[in-house]
């Protein structure tokens, strides 16, 4: 035999020393493996955080400037030479209500016919009396919606006639671009959006302090606008999204939770319920645009629900959210320890009482989390909404879920495609910030509620 022979006693002694040596030799390797694994984990987290940081800083960098916009404060003189309308009708004793309304409407129509652009032009020119500027250039400095504001001011208070009041007017998108440096100042005149005189006057107003940057509240209060892009806001899309979320919560939560409870607790376990389960899991993976097609075919073509309505959007998003809620609720129910069910059944609670008094309340935190995640997902969904007409340009804030509306993510999509790139690039990022802020809020609410529900246990 080739190997050496050692007496048994010595072998045992050697053996234990040898064993320890072997364990120690391996130990270094094992620790090294652990260190490598940890380093990989840290690297993965760092990479993920890095990408998130890049994304967020990009969005914030681009979007935050859009929350301030240039405003021009000028004296507006309601010149009787231009505002040539009769006095506002006063209701006299013989007049019926309808007659008075008709007269009032007639008066308002006449007020609208007044050349408000001329009032605007005069105010701008008066702010820089020594500056030579043509009408078109002067008017291009302020947003086109401002003339309607002057009209509305006058309708509300006809006593303004002949008066001079200070009005803070929104600068046009082009002026805003110029002042913020969003457009290259060295570009030749042919490639500039504003005429040379308008540019110079804007700069001068800025130096004088008549033009100032102020927080753009109208982003939250105005609806989308194409003719006056500087005044475009998110309010319409926000309300549209809000209606959709309400529809989703009202429909998806009860239907989803009840289906999950039935499937998990009451349904017989057979081929048919297996088939349903497989299909629910498949539904969760169906691309959202398919739900949009379904919504267009069923809700709009068959049930004749209105196009672009948040109700239809909400129904489509409900279909999309249902599988998420069902799957999460089922796994929450499955995680309830059997001892709780036994406890309830053991003292003679019926199946339904067991489920609704004891099992379901324990799963509330899970259901809540699933609901908020589902709703947040639905809130950010764009593709299915495009197919049911919610990408239409809607300039009013919807008064009900049946009125046409846009939605926040769709608004982002629409602004992203706007021709006035310089202005809307920042606007798009601003809308993204609002949407992300909303998501963060939803998630914060979810965490808060879950913590509260779990503490109650």
């Amino acid at each position, binding site marked *: 035999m080739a190997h050496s022979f050692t007496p048994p006693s010595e072998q045992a002694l050697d053996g234990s020393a040898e064993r320890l040596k072997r364990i120690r030799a391996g130990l270094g390797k094992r620790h090294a493996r652990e260190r490598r694994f940890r380093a990989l984990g840290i690297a993965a987290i760092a990479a993920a955080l890095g990408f998130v940081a890049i994304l967020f800083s990009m969005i914030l960098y681009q979007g935050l400037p859009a929350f301030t916009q240039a405003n021009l404060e000028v004296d507006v003189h309601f010149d009787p030479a231009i505002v040539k309308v009769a006095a506002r009708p006063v209701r006299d004793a013989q007049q019926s209500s309808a007659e008075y309304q008709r007269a009032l409407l007639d008066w308002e129509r006449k007020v609208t016919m007044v050349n408000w652009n001329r009032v605007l032009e005069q105010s701008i020119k008066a702010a820089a009396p020594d500056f030579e500027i043509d009408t078109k250039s002067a008017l291009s400095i302020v947003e086109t919606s401002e003339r309607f504001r002057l009209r509305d001011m006058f309708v509300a208070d006809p006593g303004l006639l002949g008066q001079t009041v200070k009005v803070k007017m929104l600068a046009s998108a082009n002026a805003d671009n110029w002042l913020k440096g969003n457009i290259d100042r060295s570009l030749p005149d042919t490639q500039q959006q504003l005429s040379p005189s308008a540019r110079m006057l804007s700069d001068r107003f800025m130096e004088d302090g008549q033009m100032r940057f102020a927080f753009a509240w109208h982003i939250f209060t105005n609806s989308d606008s194409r003719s006056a892009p500087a005044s475009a806001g998110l309010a319409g899309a926000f309300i549209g999204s809000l209606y959709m979320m309400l529809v989703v919560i009202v429909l998806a939560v009860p239907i989803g939770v009840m289906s999950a409870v039935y499937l998990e607790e009451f349904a017989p376990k057979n081929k048919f319920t297996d088939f349903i389960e497989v299909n629910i899991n498949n539904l969760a993976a169906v691309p959202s645009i398919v739900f949009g097609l379904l919504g267009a075919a069923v809700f709009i073509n068959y049930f004749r629900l209105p196009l672009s309505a948040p109700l239809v959007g909400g129904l489509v998003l409900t279909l999309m959210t249902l599988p998420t809620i069902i799957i999460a609720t089922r796994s929450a129910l499955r995680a309830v320890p059997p001892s709780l069910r*036994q406890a309830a059944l*053991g003292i003679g609670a019926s199946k339904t009482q067991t489920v609704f008094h004891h099992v379901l309340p324990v799963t509330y935190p899970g259901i809540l989390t699933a609901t908020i995640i589902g709703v947040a997902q639905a809130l950010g969904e764009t593709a299915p909404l495009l197919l049911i007409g919610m990408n239409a340009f809607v300039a009013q804030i919807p008064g009900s879920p049946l009125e046409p509306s846009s939605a926040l993510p769709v608004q982002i999509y629409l602004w992203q495609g706007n021709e006035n790139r310089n202005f809307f690039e920042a606007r798009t990022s601003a809308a993204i910030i609002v949407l992300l802020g909303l998501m963060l809020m939803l998630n914060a609410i979810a965490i808060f509620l879950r913590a509260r529900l779990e503490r109650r246990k």
Partner: protein
Amino acid sequence: MHMPTDKIVPQSDLYSRESTTARTPDENPLPVRVKARDVSVFYGQKQALFDVSIDVPEKSVTAFIGPSGCGKSTFLRCLNRMNDTIEGCRVSGLIALDGSDIYDPSLDPVELRARVGMVFQKPNPFPKSIYENVAYGPRIHGLARSRSDMDAIVESSLQKAGLWSEVKDRLHEAGTGLSGGQQQRLCIARAIAVSPEVILMDEPCSALDPIATARIEELIDELRQNYTIVIVTHSMQQAARVSQRTAFFHLGNLVEEGPTDLIFTSPVEKRTQDYITGRYG
């Protein structure tokens, strides 16, 4: 205690048959509360219990002993039809409570479980207040007419379970915040709050320390005055301490059943002898 006036005697001739298992005669037998004849249980294709026949006398403690997997818990769960909730479980034979078949299709298992209460291996109070834990049973069965009625039921149940003095100042705190032994006594209070006739206990002390165990054993001895108790236990000492009758199960068969002192001192069957002397188990 509720005593049925119209005893429905099952038509099956199984009922009138004497239990063949009891080999040791009892000197002064108590009236029989639960009667089982030829009970077999199947989980799917697998038979877990083979033709078990036993008489459970009232106002006494009957202990089921035997090695793990011998079918004692399975049989216990047949007595209040908790096996119904297990998928693929089938029970044959006859089990009668006060002379009426509990597997009668016209009998609602919910009603049965109000008459046959159960305490489980692991304390499993509801994640609710102590008061709610006890009040839940009487509430769903409509046993309390008023708020003060319910307060009285809760108090007397907790008192019977020997927990009242420990929790009377914190009735509205979570039941899950109690210690293990207190939780188990809360579960006993919860079971007796619906005034059952029979209480089934499935290894009620296996998750408790020796002091809590002693407390529960004392309690079981007190409860015997008013209730018929069936207890499954792994501990032969416990069976010897608390029970008046003992049944030994092995491999799904009821091997031997009789007065506890006789089973432990002079068992008839060799398998019983081997088990209680620790030769296997």
